[in-house]
């Protein structure tokens, strides 16, 4: 491959990452699928494990599910294809990758701030500890209220309005709020 073709590929790859920033999460439209850490890779050209006869494929977007049953994954795939098509990238393949498993550690600082502004407490620093289940271990994490900033909050339910959230309440301003679980 000559240098200019290689440059063009790099440039396209960067552009595609930029366009993907415009694809919102369908459940929490304030954050993009890139800021959420769902998009893992963008590959230009036909990858080896996709039918080589399919010459139409210009790029492959690798995504990872947040929770294994998340119903938004199909919508996200469709939205990615639609947005890239609008920008003239017609042959888009979506590849789902399970490993390494998605973690809220991959959420960008920008994304965390957007969640907070939207009224959802961003994930605490520590991801879920899967090393043991004894009740003697640390339970629900300390979470700051996204409305008033108080740490005086209570976990009402480990499971909230979507798989990725818990339900909390602030004991100072009394507002209920969603907490994006560290995962």
């Amino acid at each position: 491959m000559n240098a200019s073709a290689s440059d063009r590929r790099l440039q396209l790859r960067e552009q595609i990452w930029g366009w993907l920033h415009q694809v919102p999460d369908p459940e929490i439209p304030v954050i993009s699928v890139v800021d959420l850490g769902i998009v893992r890779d963008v590959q230009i050209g036909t990858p080896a494990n996709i039918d080589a006869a399919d010459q139409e494929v210009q790029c492959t977007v690798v995504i990872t599910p947040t929770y294994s049953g998340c119903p938004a994954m199909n919508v996200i795939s469709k939205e990615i294809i639609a947005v890239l098509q609008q920008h003239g990238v017609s042959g888009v393949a979506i590849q789902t990758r399970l490993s390494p498993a998605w973690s809220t550690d991959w959420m960008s600082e920008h994304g965390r701030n957007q969640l907070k502004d939207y009224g959802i407490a961003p994930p605490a620093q520590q991801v879920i500890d899967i090393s043991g289940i004894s009740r003697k271990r640390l339970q629900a994490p300390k979470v700051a209220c996204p409305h008033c900033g108080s740490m005086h909050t209570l976990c009402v339910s480990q499971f909230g309005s979507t798989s990725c959230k818990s339900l909390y309440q602030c004991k100072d301003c009394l507002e209920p709020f969603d907490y994006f679980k560290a995962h």
Partner: protein
Amino acid sequence: MLDKATYVRRLGDNALILSQRLSEWCGKGPALEEDMALTNVALDLIGQARLWLAYAAELEGAGRSEDQLAFLRDAHQFSNLLLVEQPNGNYADTLVRQFFFDAWHYFLLNELAKSSDPRIVEIALKSIKEVTYHVRRSGDLIVRLGDGTDLSRRMVQQAVDQLWMYTGELFSSDAADQAMVQEGAAPATEMIRTQWLQHVQEILGEATLQTPPADAWMQSGGKQGKHTEHLGYLLAEMQFLQRAYPGASW
């Protein structure tokens, strides 16, 4: 290969059938938070069921898809544990069933994450993050209800006593299990039993409940396709659409 297909299909069937049972609570939970929690757990399990069944379908190499495995098999072709097909009953029955299953699921996935099969590792590592939430919640609720009022305590104890006979099967081992253990692809069931029993005794103890004797008589057969009468009714509802309108999609 066929032993592995059997083993992986069982994992998928357990997640699928329990997910279907839990989804029967949708809109009818005793409290809004409980309704959401049960349906969230059901959603995680259906996602895990898809991952396992898709892999099982590949392993058996018969050209069937995960959907065909879920919707076009009859009761005797399902290999889920008897525990997960038991009816929802009252809320204590649902919670105790969940607690017994979640604890087993957690310890099993924890070992499957070290499997010699990379695909099993991948699915186990994805699932265990979700299952850690499940088992913490069900353990907490057992303690809250067991160490609660006279009525709640009595009902949870009754559920423990009634469901106990279905817990032996969690640790039964047949040719498929043994082949997987030999390959280093799955843990010995005896090891999971020890961890499970210890956790169950700890939680039931804290909940001021009696743990039934470990050597009590146990019912089994689910893994070999011999089910209780409840599974047929569950499948009739779950499979209705695909049976009535074969190949329907949206």
